């Protein structure tokens, strides 16, 4: 087993990986930028190394500095987490060339699944169903010809894309030209590559993905599915395991799992990976892409299968065989997770970095909280706004939902805005409760939700608290101060808006 592991990441995932390393008795090395010296992943680590300035291009994306840090500290392996260098084949190769194990798949597999078009070709060759599309970059005439053959609506996507950047829906012929221009320019801006390809748009699809784990000896199993249909701006915000749809149709798990394993094997895959599918309203599933790393939402799989995916990743990277077969994988109960972001859901989800002045975490039965925040910490403005993943486990979906609502009610983060209150509204929505999930759920929810009026007594208590707080900050008899003029704001009706 490795004697020391460096974590080439920050935030909650660095903390998550460190926890398992500590349980395995392996010292961890953190890396940090200028603004992360006080971050929890550095405080928790056994060793740490400074790797550069705040922008990630000067620190967490600097493969050379991260490798040098690993060598300086004598780390025998590097865990890349997600994001940053985790799906960078050149980095995986550089690690192996330097004699340091990359805790993930081979550079070859990352390349085979790296771009969306390469992944489509690999998957198609392995017999995976894919959404009808062009398979390669096209110009405007090619996009027009595809739409003529398959009909509108279509979807334009960046070849090098991810996270919804460079993606455009086109409902009609006359929208195509400007949408194509915008997609290409956004792709160029985000990925330095303007190439765009075309797919048939699946309307109101579900996003369901299969977790895979395989060793370097040819063994591979799937660990069931996760449903991640609740997204905003093409980013997942609520994930659950199992999928409510698959739970009703268990043969889907078998089929999607078998196809995922075939596609991954075609790429020579080992370690943890995820095959993402879109599922249409007739329950047909289509290969979307493969993520060649640990997923953000892996805790829901861990809660239901009872496995520690990070431990398995590390053991496999060290050469171990998978310690179980497909028939040994069992699923128990229901897990649901929400991603707590430093953002203001009441003002267009604008980011809200800053200092945490108060923190009360949810506790009690069935709660798992993977976070990187502490009271008094300043959330930096340079990175992703993910503060924590709040996951719960319970016997079934109804109980898991109620438990998550209960946990959210206990969760108080002061000083910055978060989406904690917003989750509660979604979880109480009747369509969410009846599992009518699809990727446009939040957009439709925002359009249909009504302002809830609080009970009159709650309003009275709010007014009383406002008065007491004001009084405590402005002792009776004090003269008019400049600071209090900031309170001359118009009150806004932001209640569960």
């Amino acid at each position: 087993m490795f004697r020391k592991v460096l974590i080439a990441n920050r935030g909650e995932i660095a903390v998550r990986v460190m926890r398992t390393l500590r349980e395995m008795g392996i010292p961890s090395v953190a890396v940090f930028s200028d603004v992360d010296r006080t971050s929890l992943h550095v405080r928790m680590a056994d060793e740490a190394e400074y790797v550069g300035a705040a922008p990630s291009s000067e620190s967490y994306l600097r493969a050379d500095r991260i490798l040098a840090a690993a060598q300086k500290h004598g780390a025998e392996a590097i865990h890349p987490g997600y994001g940053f260098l985790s799906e960078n084949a050149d980095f995986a190769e550089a690690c192996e060339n330097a004699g340091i194990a990359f805790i993930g798949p081979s550079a070859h597999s990352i390349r085979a699944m790296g771009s969306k078009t390469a992944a489509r070709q690999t998957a198609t060759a392995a017999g995976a169903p894919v959404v009808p599309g062009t398979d390669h970059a096209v110009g405007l005439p090619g996009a027009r010809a595809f739409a003529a053959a398959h009909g509108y609506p279509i979807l334009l996507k960046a070849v090098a894309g991810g996270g919804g950047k460079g993606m455009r829906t086109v409902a009609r012929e006359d929208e195509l030209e400007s949408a194509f221009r915008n997609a290409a320019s956004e792709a160029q801006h985000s990925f330095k590559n303007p190439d765009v390809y075309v797919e048939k748009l699946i309307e109101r699809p579900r996003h369901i993905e299969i977790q895979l784990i395989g060793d370097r000896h040819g063994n591979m199993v799937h660990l069931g599915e996760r449903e991640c249909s609740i997204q905003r701006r093409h980013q997942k915000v609520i994930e659950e395991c199992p999928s409510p749809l698959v739970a009703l149709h268990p043969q889907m798990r078998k089929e999607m799992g078998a196809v995922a394993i075939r596609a991954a094997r075609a790429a020579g895959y080992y370690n943890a990976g995820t095959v993402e599918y879109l599922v249409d309203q007739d329950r047909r599933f289509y290969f979307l892409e493969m993520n060649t790393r640990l997923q953000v939402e892996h805790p829901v799989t861990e809660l239901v299968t009872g496995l520690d995916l990070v431990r398995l990743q590390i053991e496999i990277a060290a050469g171990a065989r998978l310690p179980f077969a497909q028939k040994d994988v069992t699923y128990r109960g229901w897990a649901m997770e929400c991603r707590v972001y430093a953002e203001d859901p009441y003002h267009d989800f604008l980011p809200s970095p800053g200092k945490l002045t108060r923190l009360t975490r949810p506790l009690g039965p069935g709660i798992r909280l993977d976070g990187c925040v502490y009271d008094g910490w300043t959330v930096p403005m340079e990175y992703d706004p993910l503060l924590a993943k709040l996951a719960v486990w319970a016997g079934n979906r109804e109980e898991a939902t109620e438990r998550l609502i209960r946990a959210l009610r206990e969760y108080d983060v002061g000083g910055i805005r978060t989406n904690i209150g917003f989750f509660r509204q979604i979880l109480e929505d009747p369509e969410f409760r009846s599992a009518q999930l699809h990727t446009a759920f939040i957009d439709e929810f925002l359009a249909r939700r009504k302002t809830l009026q609080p009970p009159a007594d709650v309003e009275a208590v709010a007014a009383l608290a406002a008065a007491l707080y004001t009084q405590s900050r402005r002792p009776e008899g004090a003269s008019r101060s400049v600071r209090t003029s900031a309170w001359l704001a118009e009150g806004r009706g932001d209640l569960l808006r």
Partner: protein
Amino acid sequence: MTLDIILYGREHRLELLAGVPACRFRLSGGPERAAHVVAPVPGIYSVLMDGLVYDVWVEEAVSGLVIVIDGYRFEAGVCDPRRYSRQSRNRGPEGIQGLRAPMPGKVVRVLAAPGDAVEAGQGVIVVEAMKMQNELKAPRAGRVLSIAVKEGAIVAAGDVLATIE
């Protein structure tokens, strides 16, 4: 003490007749009410009123106070009627309007210079935080009076970045 409190755009007049812990108050001329209030942590109040417990979280925001009770979220403006006359905070007496940073971040682009004429909705300054860019737009047609920041500047939420008349 008497305070005017604005919740959901509705104004309430709160007369505080007795302070913590045995509070008595009257809301908008209604009946006198009693509540037992303790503050175990600054900004957190445990309110016991008519036998019911309310855990209340209060903090200051750019726009006033944010109060969360049981998942209900209120934004409140508070003013003391004896001391203040109300005015909108962004609009000065001569029709000068400030463009405020909606979030803490870094100024990545300045799209207009002092003296420029701007249309309503025209972008003036772009602020970036956490990989997301936000364009501050002119709220109405006018002329840029001043630009208070340069590209690369770090700004706090609520900072006035430009003024338009």
